[in-house]
C-alpha cells in the first residue's frame, strides 16, 4: 500500500494515531535527538539526524521486571508473572538501520526459546521508518553491511520525503492499519510520486559513506586473526565505558538480578537490564577465572559477534551500519577501521 501525505498533515496523522496508541517521534531534548512522546496536539517534525539511542528500547527496554516474588517467614515463595501490557506505540522517524537491527533482534529473541516479554512488546510497537536522503551521520556505513538508506526490513511503514509531501509505503499488516486508521489524510500514490521516491532513494544510495572495503572477506579475516596481538593494540585506549553496545541498535545482551524491597517478609522483583560485553564482570566466573580477561579480548568479542559469529549463526551481519558506536566512543575505537584492518591482515 503506497500513499501520499502532505507534509503539513503529519501532525494530524500523529494525533489520529494518538487516540489509540502512544506516539513517539525524534525531538531535540537536552542536547540530543531522542525518541520523545508526542503529546496530544503536539508537533511532529521529521528533520532529525539519527537519535542517540536506537529504537530497540521500545521492544527491549533497558530495565524490565520479569516477575515479582514474595515469601512470608516460614511460607513458600509466591511468583507473579509481569508480562508487558503497555499501550500500543507508534514510533516515527526510525532510520532504516534501526529497522534492520530489529530483524536481528527478532532472530535472537524468537529463535529457539521464544522470549515472551520481547514478543509481547514487538506486537504492540509499530515502527514508521524514514528513508535517509543523505547519511544522517558522518559515520554511516549501512551500504557496507547489506543495508541501504531506504531499506524496508524490520519496519512497518517506510516514509520518503518528497517535495512538500511524504511517500508512505505500508510494509506490514500493522503498517496498513496505521495508514487505514487515518485514511482521509492520504491520497493515492501516482506513478510520478513513485518515480520521484525512487530517484530520492537512488541519490541517497550514491551519496558517499564510510566503507568496509571487502565485507565478504571480513568474517574470514576475523577468524584468521582471532589470536592476533593487534586486538590489544586496537583496544589500548578503551576505557570500558560500554557506550558502544548500549547505543547499538542490535546489541541484546542482558543481565538478570533480584532487587528486593523487603527482606522479611521477602518481597522483590527479578529484573532484566541491558548488560555489556565490554565489562570484565560480564564473563567472570565466581571463581575469579575470566575467559575474556583483557580489553582486547572484549573488543574482539564485540566485533566478532557483529561481523563473524552472527554471520555463522544467522547468515547475516548483526551490525547494520548506524555508526553510533564510532560517533559516541570517547576514545575513537572504530568498527569500520577494525573490519578493514582485520580483513587485510595476514593472520598469525
Amino acid at each position, binding site marked *: 500500500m503506497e500513499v501520499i501525505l502532505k507534509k503539513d498533515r503529519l501532525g494530524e496523522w500523529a494525533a489520529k494515531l494518538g487516540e489509540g496508541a502512544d506516539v513517539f517521534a525524534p525531538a531535540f531534548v537536552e542536547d540530543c535527538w531522542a525518541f520523545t512522546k508526542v503529546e496530544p496536539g503536539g508537533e511532529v517534525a521529521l528533520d532529525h539526524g539519527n537519535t542517540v539511542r536506537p529504537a530497540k528500547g521500545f521492544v527491549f527496554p533497558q530495565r524490565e521486571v*520479569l*516477575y515479582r*516474588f514474595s*515469601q512470608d517467614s516460614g511460607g*513458600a*515463595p509466591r*511468583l507473579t*508473572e509481569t*508480562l508487558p501490557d503497555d499501550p500500543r506505540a507508534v514510533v516515527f522517524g526510525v532510520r532504516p538501520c534501526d529497522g534492520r537491527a530489529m530483524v536481528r533482534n527478532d532472530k*535472537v*529473541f524468537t529463535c*529457539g*526459546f*521464544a*522470549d*515472551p*516479554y520481547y514478543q509481547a512488546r514487538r506486537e504492540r510497537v509499530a515502527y514508521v521508518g524514514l528513508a535517509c536522503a543523505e547519511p544522517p551521520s558522518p559515520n554511516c556505513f549501512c551500504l557496507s553491511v547489506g543495508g541501504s538508506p531506504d531499506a524496508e526490513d524490520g519496519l512497518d511503514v517506510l516514509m520518503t520525503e518528497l517535495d512538500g509531501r511524504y511517500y508512505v509505503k505500508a510494509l506490514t499488516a500493522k503498517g496498513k492499519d496505521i495508514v487505514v486508521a487515518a485514511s482521509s489524510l492520504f491520497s493515492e500514490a501516482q506513478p510520478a510520486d513513485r518515480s520521484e521516491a525512487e530517484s530520492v532513494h537512488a541519490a541517497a544510495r550514491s551519496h558517499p559513506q564510510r566503507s568496509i572495503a571487502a565485507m565478504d572477506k571480513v568474517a574470514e579475516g576475523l577468524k584468521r586473526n*582471532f589470536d592476533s596481538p593487534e586486538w590489544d593494540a586496537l583496544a589500548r585506549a578503551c576505557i570500558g565505558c560500554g557506550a558502544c553496545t548500549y547505543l547499538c541498535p542490535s546489541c*541484546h*545482551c*542482558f*543481565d*538478570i*538480578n*533480584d532487587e*528486593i524491597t523487603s*527482606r522479611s517478609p*521477602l518481597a*522483590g522483583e*527479578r529484573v*532484566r537490564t541491558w*548488560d555489556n*560485553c565490554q565489562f570484565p564482570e*560480564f*564473563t*567472570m*566466573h*565466581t*571463581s575469579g*577465572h575470566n*575467559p*575474556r580477561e583483557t580489553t582486547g*579480548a572484549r573488543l574482539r*568479542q564485540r566485533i*566478532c*559477534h557483529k561481523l*563473524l*559469529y552472527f554471520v*555463522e*549463526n544467522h547468515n547475516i551481519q548483526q551490525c547494520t551500519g548506524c555508526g553510533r558506536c564510532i560517533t559516541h566512543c570517547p576514545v575513537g575505537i572504530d568498527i569500520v577501521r577494525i573490519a578493514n584492518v582485520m580483513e587485510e591482515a595476514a593472520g598469525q
Partner: protein
Amino acid sequence: MSKNIYLPKLARIAGIKDEVPGARGIKTFFVEFPDGDGFEHECGQCAMISVFGKGESMISIASAPAVKEYKQFSIMRTGRVTTAIHDMKPGDIVGVRGPYGNKFPLENWKGRNLVFIGGGVGLAPIWPVIQTAVANRADFGKISVFYGARTSRDIMYAEALEALRGAADVHLSIDAPEEGWQGFCGFVPANLLDKPQSPDNAVAVTCGPPIMIKFVIKNLIGMGFADEQIYTTIENKMKCGVGKCGRCNAGKDYVCVNGPVYSWAQLKDMPQEY
C-alpha cells in the same frame, strides 16, 4: 516447561547430604517437584536454580535421567547464590528452570569401553553418565572411573564411588600422601598415566578444573585416543540459559544451548573462551 522461559517451577528440597566440609564445601541437594510438574532430562544437561532474593545459578543435574522421583544437584559454595543454597534446609523451596543444553551421546557408546576421569566437584556433571552406564551394565564393555580430590576429606560421593567397585574399576587419588590412604597420591592426570587405558573401542569422558582437563586430554591423546573419542563438559557464566543474554559464548557457540558437552574434536577448534 513453563511457557514463560524465565519463570521457574517451585521445587522442594527433600534432602541434603554433606559431601565436603569447609568454606568451599560441597553439598548434594535432592529436589522434588509437585506431582506432574517435574521435567525429564538427559545426561549432561543443566538447570537454573533460583533462591528468590539472591538470584540464579546454572547447575549440572547430577542424577541419572532414569531417576524420576527427584533431581540431584551437587553444589560447591562459591558465591552469593550457592552460599544461600548451602544455608537452606530440607523443606525449603527453590526455583528450578530447565533442562538446558545438549547431552552426552551415551546411546552411541553401547558395546564400548568407558573411561571416566573426574576431579573435585567436576564429578557431578559426569555422574549421571556413570550411573546410567552402571545401571545398564550389560550394554557396555569395561568401565573405569578415575576420581581425584585435594585430600581424602575433599572426596565427594565417597560411599557411592566405593559402591561402584565390581561394576567398574575405580581409581581414586589425592594430591599428597596421607596416613592410611590406600589409593594413588598425585594429580588426576598422573593417576591416569599410572594406569594406561587402551583406546581400542573406548570413549573417555572428563570433567574437572580446566588445568586438570587440559592434562587429562594430553595424556589420553598420548595413549592413542582420537579427538572424537574424548568428551568433556565446560562451564561459563550464564544468566538466561536459553542463548539470549550473550555471555557464555565461546566463539559462535552459546555453551548453554550448543554445549555444555563437547568432544575434543569439536572443542579443539573453538576459541578457548571458557
